[in-house]
């Protein structure tokens, strides 16, 4: 009988086991985009450690920075306060159990509840093909990616506002070296409205539309941890030299083919057990039965 029960539980668990991978291989493809449609997404972990990942979102329609990140197959987590308008983890980094030595707090752990500190957050960059990386002045949901260009995510640890590290992969698709930089000029935000969108953006097909939510949409890449009621737009800051990087200086990268399943990693890190939810469910059912019996017994005693 007990073996039967264990077998049944095991079968159920296999049936319900999450099948997601760290990188959703069904979306996008590893490496650079092959042509001018789609956008190449570069995720550089910097001091967090880990190999830089380059993937392509082959989406031929327009989309926001968030669409590009998701369309390339990356798994992200927003903060509880702003939702996906503020990217808190990419590929479960920085994880909830990882200690990040931010200034003033050497064993800071990112819980993704409120805005991450300015000393440790994912900085958001973009570039046209053969252009220099630019620190985005717009939130991840407030601007459209450049078709054929690049979206960059680089973890900024203890950097000042003007010294955020740019992704260490040149924004140059292989085979297009030496071509002129083509990128639309992106005006900086002119007001403090967190819902403002970059001019000319926003004609997104409904299927990929996640720009409007109950959370104020803005500021995918600010580092200010203030307690205002709306997420402020990123502050204008110097985005470094305007010259295009040399692809020869690229760091080693992968397409994320061998990355581990995020759900598995979280399960390991949190010490979760496959059996605990079943035990919890069993306990709840048992207690509910016991409650019902006790209530009935006491009611009979009271009425007699």
């Amino acid at each position, binding site marked *: 009988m007990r073996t039967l029960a264990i077998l049944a539980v095991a079968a159920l668990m296999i049936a*319900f086991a*999450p099948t*997601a991978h760290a990188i959703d291989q069904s979306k996008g493809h590893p490496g650079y985009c092959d042509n001018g449609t789609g956008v190449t997404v570069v995720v550089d972990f910097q001091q967090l450690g880990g190999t830089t990942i380059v993937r392509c979102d082959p989406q031929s329609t327009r989309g926001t920075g968030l669409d590009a990140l*998701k369309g390339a197959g990356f*798994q*992200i*987590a*927003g903060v*509880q*306060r702003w*939702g*996906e308008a503020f990217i808190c983890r990419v590929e479960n980094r920085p*994880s*909830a*159990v990882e200690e990040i030595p931010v200034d003033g707090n050497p064993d800071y*752990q990112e*819980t993704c*509840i*409120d805005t991450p500190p300015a000393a440790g957050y994912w900085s958001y960059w973009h570039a046209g093909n053969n252009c220099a990386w630019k620190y985005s002045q717009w939130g991840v949901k407030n601007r459209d990616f450049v078709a054929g260009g690049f979206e960059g995510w680089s973890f900024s640890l203890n950097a000042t506002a003007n010294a955020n590290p740019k992704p260490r992969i040149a924004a140059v698709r292989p085979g297009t070296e030496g071509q002129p930089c083509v990128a639309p000029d992106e005006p900086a935000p002119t007001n403090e*409205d*967190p*819902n403002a969108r970059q001019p000319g953006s926003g004609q997104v097909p409904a299927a990929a*539309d*996640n720009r*409007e*939510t*109950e*959370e*104020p*949409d803005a500021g995918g890449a600010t580092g200010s941890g203030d*307690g205002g009621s709306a997420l402020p737009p990123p502050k204008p800051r110097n985005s470094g030299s305007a010259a295009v990087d040399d692809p020869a200086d690229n760091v080693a990268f992968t397409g994320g083919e061998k990355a581990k399943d*995020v*759900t598995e990693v*979280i*399960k390991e*890190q*949190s*010490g*979760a*057990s496959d059996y*605990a*939810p079943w*035990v*919890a*469910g069993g*306990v*709840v059912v048992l*207690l*509910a039965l*016991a*409650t019902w019996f*006790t*209530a009935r017994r*006491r009611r009979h*005693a*009271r009425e*007699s």
Partner: protein
Amino acid sequence: MLSTYFLPRDLHPAAWWVWALGLAVAASRTTNPWLLLTILAVASFVVVARRTDAPWALAFRIYLYLGSVIVCFRVFFRFVFGGAEGSTIILRLPEIPLPEWAAGIRLFGDVSAESLLGGLYDGLRLATMVICLGAANALANPKRLLKAMPPALYEVGTAVIVALSVFPQLAESVLRVGRARKLRGGTSGKRFHALHAIIIPVLEDALDRSLRLAASMDARGYGRAGKVAARVRLVTGLLMIVGLIGVCVGVYATLDGSTPRFLAAPVLVAGLVIALIGFRFAGKRVQRTRYRPDRWHLAELVVAASGVAVSVVLFATSSVDPTNLNPSLIDLSWPLLSWVPLCGVLIGLAPASLSPPPEPPFDHEPIRLAEKVPA
């Protein structure tokens, strides 16, 4: 020692409050549905096993209804005010366009499974906290809680306890009026008539009861001003109210991770200091003796400690593995759970067996004895 431990008696009401607040604080730390359901089951079982037959004890069911209403509302609002956060769209509703000044608010539109689950987890957490407070109200005798108040807290305590016992009394009224209606028959009338037949007697009952309470408190000398100058009383009252508000804000900010930190420890400490000064002033002029004060025995300590232990375990584990206390909704999967928080919550079951059973009402005792004789 052990022979007297399980003798039926009413526990010190503060012990039940500490236990229930421990469970509520534990619930506030997590959105994991497994843990929240376990906390709910634990609280309900202890209430049913250890409540008395007093009117406030039988109102626990109303708190359960209130909890389910909270959960339903939270989920419903995700439908109304847009729940497209997340990629698994399960329902496409037509979106109602809003004028420019209402930017950021969305009516209907796509609804994703992730945002519905988020609403469910969030609502479940609030419902669990409310039901934990309901458990305290069901188990602790509010009149004896007032008796156990320190003299300095006397004025504030009176107001707080009158306020706290309003809801259980209303609930008890509703149940009683409903029962009377059922006994009279003819309940198949129209809905409006039913509303009419319940609300008016309940309101009348509440009014009667408050007049009775006022009269009895007046007769016992509550609310007497004594020989204190009006200005001194005003200053004392002001100090205490400001201090207690500071304590409330401080406790809230300490427990809620997303409030600015300057509202946490500094406000809490400042509030405590101001309140203590107020208590000192107030305590100096209140001289009050107690008739047969409730004492803290071992059983009270066990009950209070089990509640505190639950919250301590959840606080400790939330700094180790926040991921499974706040399940991620990045991609849909079953919420994870590890053993430590689960076992921690189960400590809260201790009072169901490790506390003395409630005192049976006086008039029931002879009947029970008589029943045993023929058998």
